[in-house]
C-alpha cells in the first residue's frame, strides 16, 4: 500500500547538510501493524510525518495507494490525505474549545459530510469507544487516557486505511497505555486498519507485526514478530 524509495530529509546547518533521514527504503503492505523504534533524534517522527503527508522529503520517491506522491499537487495530496490517513499524537492535540463530540465531528465537517450522516457516524464511534457519556465534556475535563481515546476516535471517524500514531501512549500510565495498545491490535485485526506507530516502549512495540529500528536516519534493522 505504501512504498518509500531512497527517501532523504536534510537541513542546512551552517553550510553543512545534516541528514535527518538518509536514503530510507520501506514497503508497507495493507493490514500490517508496524512499530518504529529508535533513540531520540533518529528520525522516527520525521519518517512518520512524511508517510502521513504532513512533511515532504528532500529527495526520493514516495508511493501511496498506487499514487506517486512526489508528483502530486498540494490539492490532490490533501484530498488523498483527508480520506485515507488518520493521525494520533502523544499530546492528543484535541481542540480545547470544542467538546468531545465536536472534536470527533470536525474532520467530517472538513470533508463536507452531511449533518445527518455526521450524527450517525459520531454516535456510532462514541458507542464503540464507550465514551457516549463524555460527549459534551471539554478536553480539559477528561483524563489523559480518555483524551487519547477521543484522539483515536477522531482519527478513525473518516474510516482511514492507514492510522499513524506518534508515541500514542507516551503521556499515559502503563495501564492506560496497555488499553490503547489493545485497541490498536483490535482495530488492526478486526477492521483491517493498517497501523504505523512510533514508540519508545519495547513492550508496546511487541503488539505490532513488524518492528523497524531507526538509527541516525537509517533503517538499522527490521524484524517480523
Amino acid at each position, binding site marked *: 500500500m505504501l512504498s518509500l524509495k531512497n527517501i532523504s530529509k536534510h537541513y542546512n546547518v551552517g553550510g553543512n547538510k545534516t541528514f535527518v533521514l538518509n536514503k530510507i527504503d520501506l514497503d508497507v503492505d495493507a493490514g500490517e501493524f508496524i512499530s518504529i523504534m529508535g533513540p531520540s533524534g533518529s528520525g522516527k517522527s520525521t519518517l512518520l510525518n512524511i508517510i502521513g503527508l504532513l512533511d515532504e522529503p528532500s529527495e526520493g520517491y514516495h508511493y501511496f495507494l498506487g499514487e506517486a506522491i512526489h508528483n502530486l499537487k498540494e490539492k490532490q495530496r*490533501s484530498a488523498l490525505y483527508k480520506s485515507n490517513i488518520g493521525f494520533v499524537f502523544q499530546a492528543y*492535540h484535541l481542540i*480545547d*474549545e*470544542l467538546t468531545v463530540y465536536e472534536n470527533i465531528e470536525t*474532520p467530517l465537517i472538513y470533508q463536507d459530510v452531511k449533518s445527518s450522516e455526521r450524527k450517525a457516524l459520531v454516535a456510532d464511534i462514541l458507542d464503540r469507544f464507550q465514551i457516549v457519556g463524555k460527549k459534551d465534556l471539554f478536553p480539559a475535563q477528561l483524563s489523559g487516557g480518555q483524551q487519547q481515546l477521543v484522539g483515536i476516535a477522531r482519527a478513525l471517524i473518516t474510516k482511514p486505511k492507514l492510522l499513524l500514531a506518534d508515541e500514542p501512549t507516551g503521556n499515559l500510565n502503563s495501564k492506560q497505555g496497555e488499553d490503547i495498545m489493545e485497541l490498536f491490535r483490535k482495530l488492526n485485526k478486526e477492521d483491517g486498519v493498517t497501523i504505523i506507530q512510533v514508540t519508545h516502549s519495547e513492550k508496546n512495540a511487541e503488539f505490532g507485526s513488524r518492528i523497524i529500528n531507526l538509527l541516525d536516519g537509517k533503517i538499522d534493522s527490521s524484524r517480523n514478530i
Partner: protein
Amino acid sequence: MIKTYFKTAWRYLLNNKTTTLISIAGLAVGICCFLLLTTYLLNELRYDRFYPNADRIVRVGNNYKTINDNQETNSAVTPTAVVPVFKRQIAGIEDGVRIYNYSGYKPVTVQYKDDLFNEKKVLLADDSFFKIFGFKFLAGNAASALSTPGSLVLTASTAKKYFGNDNPVGKILKVNQTNNMMVTGVIEDVPAYSQIKFDMLGSYSMLDRSKVLKWDSGNDYSYFLLKPGAAATSVQQKMNLYLTDVLKSQQKPGRHAWFTLEKLTDVHLHSSLSNGLEPSGNIKYIYILSFVAVILLVLACINFLNLVTARAAERAHEIGVRKVMGAQRKQLFIQFITEAGLITLASLLIGLALAYLAFPAFSNFAGSQLGLSTWRFTWLAPLLSGLFITVTLLTGAYPALYLSAFKPVTNMKGHGSSKNGNLRKGLVVLQFVVSVFFIICTLIVGHQLRYIQSMDTGINRSQVLVMDIGGMPFNKIETFKNAISTQPGIKSTTASYDSPVQIKGGYTITQAEGKSPDYSLSITGIPVERGFVNTLGIKLLQGSDYTPADEKQVMTDTFANRKYSFIINETAARALGWKPEQAIGKRIGVNGRIGKVKAVTRDFNFASLHKSITPVVLFAEYDWFSKLLIKTSAGNLQNTLTGIKQTWKSFYPNTPFEAHFLDQEFDEMYQNEQRTGGILNIFTAVTVFISCLGLFGLAIFTTKQRFKEVSIRKVLGASVSNIVALVSSDFLKLVFTAIIIASPLAWYAMNRWLQDFAYRITLSWWIFVLSAVLTVLLAFITVSYQTLRAALINPVKGLRSE
C-alpha cells in the same frame, strides 16, 4: 458549517475574556468617536444646502484698501445701494435682498400685552427675502409678507412663545417700545445649519436708509439670486466694471474698492470676510477632524490586529490540529474572519449605544446644535454596514491570512513562530506616535489659550460690567449713570459706541496736518464718552484724557459747530509718521470730523488676538452709544449687581436688564479655539486610552511568551527589579521611538496653528519633555502589572511547562 464557525468563534472569544474585552473596548470607543465625528462633520457639510436655490445664491463681499493702508479690508457688510442698483443694472442677477441684523448691537425688546421679551435674533430684510430663500410658510403669504413697513414674520416656536395656540397673523407686537409691528406670517423654525438664523424677520423698509442709495458706510448683508446659468464670476466682473466706470466720481482718490461674490454654500466653511452674520467655521478644522475620525478608527483596529497576531503562537497549535484533521486554508480563513466579525459586530453595537448616550454632551461641547434628528437611517445604515465590512476586513483579513498559512508540523510542536513581531511593534509605535502627537497638541493649545486669557492686552477687563443700551439718548444715560454712581462698589462709568474688546467701526483719516491733500488712512474708530480711557485702564503715553470742556464742545447739536479732539494709539501715530510727542496738537480729519490729537495711548488690543494691533482713533461724540461700561470694585459683586439692576428697573420697568462682564465677552471671542481645545482634549484621552489598551494586551502576551526565559533568569539569580526592567524596557523602547517620531510632527503642526495668532507663545522644549514624560509614565503604568506578575512567578512553574 456556518453554525460551527459561529459556535467555535463564540467559545473562543468567551474563553479569552481579557483579550476579547480589550478588543471590544478599544473598537467600541473608536467607533463611538467615529460616529460622533461623522455626525458633526455631516452637519457642517450640509450647512445652507437645504435652501431650494442654494446653488444660485451668492453673498456680496465689500473690499477696499487705500494707499496708506497696510492691508486690505474684506468685509461682509455692504452699502445700501448694492442690491437695488446691481439688480437693475446686471442681467445675470434675478433678484437680491438686503438683510440687517437688527439685534446686532443689543437685544430687541418685544412686548405683547403684558409679556416682555428680549429677542436676540431679529433680522430685517427686503421683501424679496422669501422668494430667494424659500422658507415654508405655515401661515400668511410668502409673496406679500414683508411688503409693507412694519410687517413681521415669526418662526413657529417664536409664534408659540407669544401667542400659544392662537393665530398670530394680524396681531400687533410692540418693538423697542416705539414701533408697532404686525405679524404677517409664520414660517417653520430655521434649521441650526443655516448661516441666516432668526426668530423674527421684519421689513427692511422700516429703516430710514432703505430709500437712500449710498455707496459708503455699509451696514447690511447683501445676497443675490443669480439667474439659472449665470456665472458668479462674470456677474462679479460686471459689478466691478460698473464700480470703476459709472461710480468713478464717488471713489475717493487712492482708494481701491471692489466687490466679491461668494456662493452661499461656501460662506460657512470657506469665507474669509469679517463681520459675517455669524462667525464662520473653518474648512481646515473639517479636514483635521475627518483625519482624526479615521485615525481613531485605525488605532482601534490596530489593537485587535495586534492581539490576534500576538496570540498566533497560542493558536498555532489549534491551526496545526485542524489542518491535520483536513481543514483547508479557505475554511480556516472563514473561521478567523467570523471571529473578527463577531468582535466587530459587538463593538459596533456598543459603540452605537455609547455614541447615543454621549450625543447630548458632545453636541453641547462641539457648540453646534446637533440633534439626534441628525441621525437618519438613510446614511446611518450604509455607514454602519460599511463600517462593519471595513473593520471586519481590516481586523480579520490579515490575521486570517497569516494564521491559516501556518504549516501543521512545525506548529504542532507547540510554539509557532512569531515572525511578525516587527509588524506588531511597528503598529504599537504608530499608535503611540498618534498619542504623543495629540498629547503635545493638547498641551500647546491649552497653553496658548491660557496665554491669550492672561495676556496684558492694554485694557483692564476685570470687574468691568457691560450693559447693552443700544442707542439710548445721552441725557438718559447720564441720569442713569448719576443714579448708580452713588452706589457702593462702583468705581467709574463710561459709555461707548462698541464693546472695547471688539471695536468694529471702519473710518478714514484725511486732511492730516503736514500730509498731501490726497492722504488717506483706513483706521478703526470709536465714539466714546469722557472717562473711557480711565475706566478701562488704558495708559496714555502723551497728552491727557478728555475734560468736561472737551465734552461740551461736542455736545452741540449741529455737526458743523462741534470741535473734536482725538485720542489715537501708538500704532496710528506711527502710521501717520509721528512720534507720540510730535502727534499732540496735530490736526486730523476722521470722516469729516476735524480736530486735534489730544493724546496718544499705549497700544491696546481692540480686536481678536488673531490680528495684530492696527491704528485706532477714539473720539468724544455723544450721538449714539450702545454700551455702558461700569467698573466695579472687587468686593461683594452680587450686591453691586443687584443695586444696578434695581436702579435700572426703577428707570425702565419695560426694558429687561441685560449685562455681562467684559472678561466673559473677551473669552467668547475665542470660543472656536476653546471648542477645538475641548475636542482635542477628548480625543487625546481616547487615543491614549486605546493605545494603552493595546499596549496592555501586548504585554499580556509578551510576558507569557517570555515565561521560560524569565524563569531561567530567576533561577540564575535575577531580582524582581531586574526582571521588571528587562521586560518593561522592551515596551519603553517602542514608546521612545514613538516620541522621537511624533515630536517634530507635532512641532510642525502646532507651529502652523500658532501662525493664526498674532499673539502667540513660543514653542518651548519643556512642553515636549513633559509630553514625553507623561507618555512614558502612562506606558510604564500600563505594562507594570503584567511585568510585575512575570517577575513574581515561581520559576519552577515556568520551567515545568516546557
